């Protein structure tokens, strides 16, 4: 396995896994699994509001999506590592709001460009899929 960090690697929680991520509200409905490869996009998007540490990113994704998305926290870190290696984000140790040492990630300018690119791509993709589904119903 040579090229790790390629999109094909599964960053999301396998549906069959024996555990499920902890929910702040008790599980009332099925969560959506992330589509393969979308985690990077979400991380980049989250960081546009300023630098954040890993746990913060995980929380932000979950909250912003109205708890619809299921993110395994453990999967986040390899993704962060990868993004860092590609120089789309940079990291440095800092102190969190509640005075804990944490590693803070922030977008680089290459990361911004990448985010714009990925966003456009995603919008086109979802619009296209939406159109197809709408046509089906009509």
């Amino acid at each position, binding site marked *: 396995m040579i090229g790790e960090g390629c999109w094909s690697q599964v960053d999301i929680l396998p549906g069959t896994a024996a555990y499920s991520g902890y929910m702040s509200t008790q599980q009332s409905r099925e969560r959506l699994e992330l589509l393969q490869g979308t985690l990077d996009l979400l991380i980049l998007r989250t960081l546009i509001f300023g630098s954040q540490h890993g746990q913060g990113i995980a929380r932000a994704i979950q909250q912003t999506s109205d708890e619809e998305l299921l993110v395994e926290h*453990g999967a986040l870190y390899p993704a962060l590592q990868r993004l860092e290696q590609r120089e789309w984000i940079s990291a440095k140790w800092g102190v969190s709001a509640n005075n804990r040492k944490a590693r803070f990630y922030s977008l680089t300018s290459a990361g911004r460009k990448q985010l714009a690119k990925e966003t456009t791509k995603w919008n086109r993709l979802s619009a296209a899929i939406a159109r197809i589904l709408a046509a089906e119903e009509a």
Partner: protein
Amino acid sequence: MFQRKRKRSDFDAEIEAHLQLEKERLREQGLSEQDAETAARQAFGNLTRAEERFYESGRALWWDHLCQDVRYGLRMLRRSPGFTAIAVLTIALGIGATTAIFSIVDATLLHPLPYPHPEQLVSVVDDFPGVGAENVGMSVPEWHDLEHSGIFQYVSPMGGGGSVNLTGGSQPARASFLSESPNYFATLGVKPELGRAFDPEDKTPGFTLEALISDGLWRGAFGSDPNILGKSLRLDNDLYRVIGVMPPGYHDPGQMVEERNTEVWAAAGFAGPPAPPPLRESHFLVEAIARLAPGLSVREAQSRLDVFVAGLQKQYPEDYPAQNAWKVRLVPLQESLVGNVRESLILLLGAVALVLLIGCVNVANLMLARASARGREMAVRQALGAARSRLMGQLLTESLLLSVAGGIGGLAILFCTRRFLLQILPESLPRFNEVSINWTVLLFALGTSLVAGAIFGLAPALHAGRVDLVPMLKQEGRGSTGSAEQARTRRALVVTEFALSLVLMIAAGLLLHSFWDLLNVRPGFNPQNVMAVRMWLPIPNDPDTDPYRTAAQESVLVRELLRRGKTVPGVEEIAIGDLAAVPLGHGRNDLNTTPLILEGQEIRSGQPPTISHSIVTPEYFHLLGMAVLRGRAFNDSDDDKHPAAAVINEAFARTYWPNDDPLGKRLKTDPASPDWITVVGVIADARTESLAEETVAQVYLSSYQRRAKDLAIFLRGRLDPAAVPVQLRAQVQSADPELPVFGAQMLSEGVSESLAERRFSMEMVALFALTALLLAGLGIYGVISYIVSERTHEIGIRLALGAQRANILRMLLRQGLGLALGGAAVGLVCSVIVSYLMAGLLYGVRPMDPLTFASVALLLVGVAVLACYIPARRAIRVDPLVALRYE
């Protein structure tokens, strides 16, 4: 690309921070310390997996894996030394043999000639395609025209070589000699080790009286004399000055051994004596090489040359009759040297590659058997989470380890046996001296072993990727029983093996059959108990000093030699002829090719056909057992006082006088001569040029009427091969002390030597085919043994239930035979293709020779039956009780 690598501890700290942050957040939401901790961990998921991913992201993982695989592979190979030894040995032999053949191919076909800018060197060949004559030679004016055409840097014709008498030492010696134009060494781009080469601009019409000598002659005849330069050398009674010594290991470009091993070079302008007058139609320059102008490709040069030659034909219409369609052909020198050996070499390389391939298939089979034995190990590893790609990588690494070990072993074998191998190479092989183990050969060996490893590693590796885990893990204890798919692959491999072996054996069988036919060809002469000993009469540059200038003068010597030679003990019959009269013992350039003019038959083309002639004494035909069919052989009175006589062979009579009685007909070999030669006899055809070729038209002339310089004395009787040459030399030198005697050879040896190259390729292919047969036999033996051991339990039950042993034997044999027949069928189809491709190497055998095809197929099936019978017999001898317990 890589920033400073992140430390593991840094990553761990980050994860720890994450868990703490998450826990605190959950605590704020009101969970207990314990619950918060658990929940945070749960949300995080698989901690180990995250750590692994981090580990993997930071490094060149494949290198890690490779190191692991190699270490593990070595351990596995050490643990089964028997398997490892067999596999490595098979591959080592295969690679050793393939590399050995490749080193010959490399030296002869691939390696550039050992001269500077070899791509510029061409051989210049003159043809008269209009009258079907090839290689007619070049005339002096044509040489000068070509040199001024702007197409070439140099054109260097050769006046032929052969022998020269080196006198002045204790013994007159014969040296291998080449006369060439002064620009010869400039053309080749070679400089002498000592002294200088000829001045390429030298315009001396005759010989320049300067000589270059070979390193061997300098060390041998001159004791490495450091003051050799300027000393004089008596060559054919003329004094030459030594101007240089060629470097050790230098060889002239030549197809024949003798052409390559020139010892003395002398340069001439070929425009004065002893050369004939330099007329445009006198094509006496037998060979020419040239160096193209820089930057000119052979193709471009050829098209410019065609235009140039057409211009010459217009300019001299009388010298170049249109019917001849004179053409000058440029052949890259390398190609012209290799000649017809290319086909044989490619066949050999193909054959040995097949053997290697069969070896690979065998090893693949072994590996598959082992893979099924290791099936559980693989399944367990996979169940524990090993990626399939990693398992396949592991197996491939093991195969590559085996093949590289095999490659190294093969090179070691080759290196240890290289002396012996060079000895069995026929010396007549072009560029024989250049065969060596060099970097190209080493790289080839490495490349081949990697490819071989990939070939035999692929099947087991692919299977490892497709293991069905559950049944594999369910098996208790023992871990054999390969999957059905594996069994299929193994059978397919055996079929392949048989097909490949059959192809090889048919190739070998066809060659063997051809060779057998050649040995049994009736040559038309009897070589038994005949010895030919060569002599050389000098050709001095001033004809007036030649004691044997005319046939009459020479016939005195010839008669004296016949008389004296007869006194040598054991000699019953003696005859003398020229070199062209030695059956199968002369090169193409030794033939005396002359124009042929027949009386009464108008020369339609303007240019007469050519014919080769031999000059012989009357006893020649009887001594060699060549039957006189009509008329008479020569007799003692066919001398200069009587009209010239000729004896022709049947082929001549058939070709030129198909409907007439040839006796009394007259012919000429020199258009300018007023004298006709009368045919007095017709002899039966004899294959004196090549055993493999139909006899060509030939004329014999009387020694007493036509002089010859390169003589051969033929002796028949109970001859002592060691003593006779010495005794004969004494007799010859008592007639003329200046004459060297050399090259004594029994004619039967000469006949077998003329087949040396054929014999070599036949023996090699036969050896490879036998190896292939053995390997294929082992392969099928292995598969049947495997089937038997797998089914021992079943066979036990059958026996216990009362099955007949014969039935079980038949069942097992049928299985093996099915494989063999399948392989034979595939092989037969492939063989048809291969045999047509090698048609050029066959003699007297059709490519689809039914005898060869049938007997080879039978032999193969026989071997298969035997290979199946041994394990099958073991199976039916099994005690049912033991077999039932066998688990």
